[in-house]
């Protein structure tokens, strides 16, 4: 028995002997037992009366209630147009609110209340909020903002977040200054702040995704490396469609992309600077094929697969060049390596057991531990940025799945199922996974999708794309 409130059932009452465990009054009863009969009678009577008194007194103790069956419904929020504080800011005021609302709604955790339902509007950023008007439409969170234009194509964006029912502002107001063509990024930053203050998690809206853009028929598909905002907007191509490109992956700071290109006829690894779009070949050992590269968390080295003859093993080399270090030496195919966030371990896929499975080894190689044991084949493992989960592709009974498991292989959960789902990548906060979904048949196409790690909120992000890699949160 403990006095700890956590160990009490919701309406449990402390029986006297249980009270004793907390208060030590059992010694009193021990003393009573030694009294003569009449004295014992009076003592017992006194004790009974004391018990009755105690029950009355106890009735005035706080009620104790335990609630463990919460609802999970998207949180209703209102995001009225930002207040345009200068001439020419009207369009930004509407667009900023629209992108903030879309970000929050797309997360699946929030539900936007339509503007048509608003009883009042925000016409001055600094005026007191009329909470009653927002309570009446059940807006639980309210995002207000303002935007003003400045010289040299600059805009200043301010925002505040309110918890409507507690009539409290959540956190400090924030202000962002940037160029007019960066207004979407500022909206994403506002949405990240709102998301973070309500969920307690880091956001992921101000981030980008690099992927393989695909166009043309399936038997002659042109592929280019492209980059876009996390929501599919602001698409830009980083390479031409003159050669096949595969598996672009961001560097940890998001400034560079490493990928595989067939432009020499053999797969080679290139590093591309996102800002200048300049590139260099990283690995060019004659007579070999290198592919499936991925940066180490420190950004200074790269792990990749290298095929020599008919054998494929994992290697690591410095981004500055130099001799590669061989990490595996099995007569089987080892590929799709991914570092743990602390850089100490690597998860990869291998068919050394006879079927394609997932293994974990130290960052410098050594003995690997198999972590996947379910039915089917496992591939393309990616370590979560939080370090707690590994996302993977699973093929079983003719269906493909995106799933997650604990880093020791326990707790496997399949999040999707379709004709072909593959190639997961994690959002910066480790709460969302983006992947490729391909439809069947000659006219089949690839579309980037996202899904929460709970398996909820499956969404199509962009058509004509595959092999995504999510950047870290932008600075």
């Amino acid at each position, binding site marked *: 028995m403990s006095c700890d*409130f*956590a160990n009490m059932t*919701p*309406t449990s*009452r402390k*029986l*006297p*002997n249980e009270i004793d465990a907390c208060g030590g009054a*059992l010694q009193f*009863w021990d003393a009573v*037992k030694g009294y003569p009969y009449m004295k014992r009678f009076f003592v*017992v009577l006194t*004790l*009974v009366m004391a*018990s*009755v008194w*105690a*029950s*009355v007194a*106890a*009735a*005035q*103790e*706080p*009620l*104790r*209630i*335990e*609630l*463990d*069956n*919460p*609802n*999970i*419904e*998207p*949180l209703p929020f209102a995001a009225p147009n930002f207040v345009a504080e200068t001439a020419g800011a009207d369009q930004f005021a509407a667009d900023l609110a629209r992108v903030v609302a879309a970000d929050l709604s797309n997360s*699946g*955790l*929030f539900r936007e209340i339509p503007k048509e339902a608003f009883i009042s509007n925000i016409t001055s950023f600094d005026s007191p909020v009329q909470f009653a008007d927002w*309570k009446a439409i059940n807006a*639980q969170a309210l995002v207000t903002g303002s935007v003003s234009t400045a010289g040299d194509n600059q805009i200043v964006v301010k925002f505040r977040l309110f*918890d409507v*029912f*507690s*009539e*409290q502002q*959540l956190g400090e107001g924030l202000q962002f200054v940037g160029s007019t063509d960066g207004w979407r990024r500022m909206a994403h930053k506002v949405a990240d702040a709102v998301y*973070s203050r*309500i*969920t*307690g*998690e880091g956001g992921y809206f101000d981030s980008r995704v690099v992927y393989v853009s695909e166009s043309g028929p399936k038997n002659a598909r042109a592929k280019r490396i492209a980059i876009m905002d996390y929501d599919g907007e602001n698409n830009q191509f980083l390479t031409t469609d003159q050669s096949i490109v595969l598996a672009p992956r961001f560097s940890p700071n998001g400034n560079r992309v490493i990928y595989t290109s067939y432009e020499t006829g053999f797969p080679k690894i290139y590093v591309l600077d996102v800002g200048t779009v300049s590139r260099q070949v990283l690995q060019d050992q004659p007579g070999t094929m290198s592919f499936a590269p991925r940066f180490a968390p420190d950004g200074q080295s790269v792990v990749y697969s290298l095929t020599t003859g008919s054998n494929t093993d994992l290697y690591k080399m410095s981004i500055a060049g130099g001799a590669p270090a061989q990490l595996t030496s099995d007569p089987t195919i080892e590929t799709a390596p991914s570092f743990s966030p602390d850089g100490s371990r690597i998860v990869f896929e291998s068919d050394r057991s006879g079927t394609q499975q997932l293994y974990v080894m130290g960052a410098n190689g050594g003995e690997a531990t198999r972590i996947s044991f379910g039915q089917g084949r496992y591939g393309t493992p990616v370590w979560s940025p939080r370090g707690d989960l590994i996302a993977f592709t699973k093929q079983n009974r003719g269906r493909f799945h995106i799933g997650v498991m604990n880093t020791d292989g326990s707790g496997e959960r399949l999040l999707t199922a379709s004709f072909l789902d593959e190639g997961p990548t994690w959002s910066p906060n480790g*709460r969302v996974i983006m992947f490729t979904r391909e439809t069947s048949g000659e006219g089949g196409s690839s579309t980037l999708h996202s899904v*929460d*790690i*709970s398996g*909820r909120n499956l969404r199509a992000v962009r058509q004509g794309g595959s092999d995504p890699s999510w950047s870290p949160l932008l600075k």
Partner: protein
Amino acid sequence: MRLPALSAALMLAAWSGPALADEDLSEALKAQIVPCWNVAALADVSDYIWMFVSLDLKPDGTFGADDIIWQENRGGTEGEAIAMYLTVERAIMRCGRDGFDLPAERYDEWRASNLVFVLNEEPSK
């Protein structure tokens, strides 16, 4: 330690009545808060989070912002704990905005309550 049978029976008799009544009160208050406790903001959190808040009510069942006090929490990150508290506060504020409907003649029994909110199963269970 075993108590003498007679005394134990008397004690239980003395405690049994109010216990049932308290349970009714607890259930009445719980039933009024549960519909508003929405943890969508923590939907992707699989950690066990335990939060204990106290709530003081006025005779008409209303309360002020200072009457909800975060007493203790366990599990989850600091950010998740804050988010959890916000879901709890929002639940009480929303469903109690017009005052909780509890029997006025028993105000002494419900003027103070200790509420424990539990998200996800405790790991050891």
